[in-house]
């Protein structure tokens, strides 16, 4: 494993819920808080819309990291969506780590619509961590 990954520009797919995290990303934009351009956002209505299959698919197609971001527990626009997300993705994350996938590859964070700075910070830290890990080879399609 190389210690540094000079020149490696990872691809990070972020599934953001429309009401909190996507709004947080917009706020980061409005506030001109620059963050890693490695991050690509897919808008979903709620973090509970994120099917584990989407996450695995992103890795297969070449994502080096996947982030799911939703409202803080209790703040879900749909009352309870992120509570289900929390259980589902905790299980998925445990499984992926158990299968030998680095925990940093797949992350879940709560980012509210007022947390523009947090959004930028999380994106940078995820990008940093993934850069350090290097490219995703384990879950990527060979063909």
């Amino acid at each position, binding site marked *: 494993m190389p210690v540094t990954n000079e020149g490696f520009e990872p691809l990070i797919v972020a599934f953001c819920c429309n009401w909190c995290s996507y709004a947080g990303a917009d706020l980061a934009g409005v506030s001109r808080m620059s963050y890693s351009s490695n991050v690509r956002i897919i808008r979903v209505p709620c973090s509970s819309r994120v099917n584990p299959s989407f996450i695995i698919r992103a890795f297969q197609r070449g994502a080096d990291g996947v982030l799911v971001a939703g409202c803080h527990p209790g703040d879900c626009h749909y009352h309870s969506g992120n509570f289900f997300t929390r259980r589902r993705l905790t299980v998925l994350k445990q499984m992926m780590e*158990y299968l030998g996938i680095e925990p940093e590859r797949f992350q879940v964070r709560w980012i509210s619509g007022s947390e523009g700075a947090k959004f930028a910070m999380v994106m940078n830290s995820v990008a940093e961590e993934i850069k350090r890990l290097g490219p995703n080879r384990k879950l990527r399609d060979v063909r």
Partner: protein
Amino acid sequence: MQQKVEGYPLKEYTTKICQIAKEALENREVTAIIGWRKKDFWWQSPVVFLEDPADVQQLVWDPFTIYSPVKFLLDWQESCAAKVGIFVKGCDSRGINRLLQDKRLERERVAVYGVPCGGKADAEKIRASFPSKEIKSVTLIGEELVLAVGEREERVKAEAYLLDKCLSCRHPNPVVYDKLVWEEVSPRQYADESRFARVQAVESLVTEERFAYWQRQFDRCIRCFACRNTCPACNCRVCIFDQAEPRWLGKANDPADTLNYHIIRAFHVAGRCFECGECERICPAGVPLQELNRKLIKGINDAYGDYEAGLDPTDVPPLGTYRGEDPAGFDES
């Protein structure tokens, strides 16, 4: 409390099962019976489907009535409206509850005959110690396995020859039934300790070792879907992996697709798997699927409280509910 074990001679078991089946068919309680029968070899006791009372003599109960009969119920229900009788071991009975909870089974259309089970034998383990061709029969009597090998009778400690999944079985007695075929047996005392032993062994590896370990396992997978097909929890009418639009799973034999399959399969049974172990037993490639299923059970138990699937068909599986104060396996700051 005295340890209760299967203690009847082989014949008496089978006789009892045949008798129940015969009565049920003759009284028109049911129009068909699902049980096990003996096939050509000593290690084969597959599931059989009978409609004629005259055929009930085919039924058998021996250390190889391993196969779960419950998924046949789905086909039965799809094909006709009549009532069927089914013999179930402890593990199979939880499969009944699985189907009931998933609303895939109409309870009134099944007569469930519960068979308390002392554990099933592992043919591989037996073959390793005895010449397979000379074995004529294998019987479980108490904690002993009685083998007729050639002309002689061998008595060995059953524990060494039982299936791993039976050694860690927590519910040898059916948890749902209309009629109990014979007296209940006691669960094995070491069942709890051995339940997560293999999971813990894998957990103790570092990330890269774990990945290498699982790659070795999944490399053998030929994606025959036998694990899914036999699993009573995999009871969707149209499995996601069989769909073309969208295509959730690539068709090419790509290692990433294999991993995708195993992750999503395990995720779909998370909180629903009741540890019958059929997936792993039936796998032609020897992929240790129970190590994956049980990892999820362990994780859910640790995070969201102990839960055993297939015990109560009216409860809500852990991923279908939540508590506000649930912990998370990720950074919640």
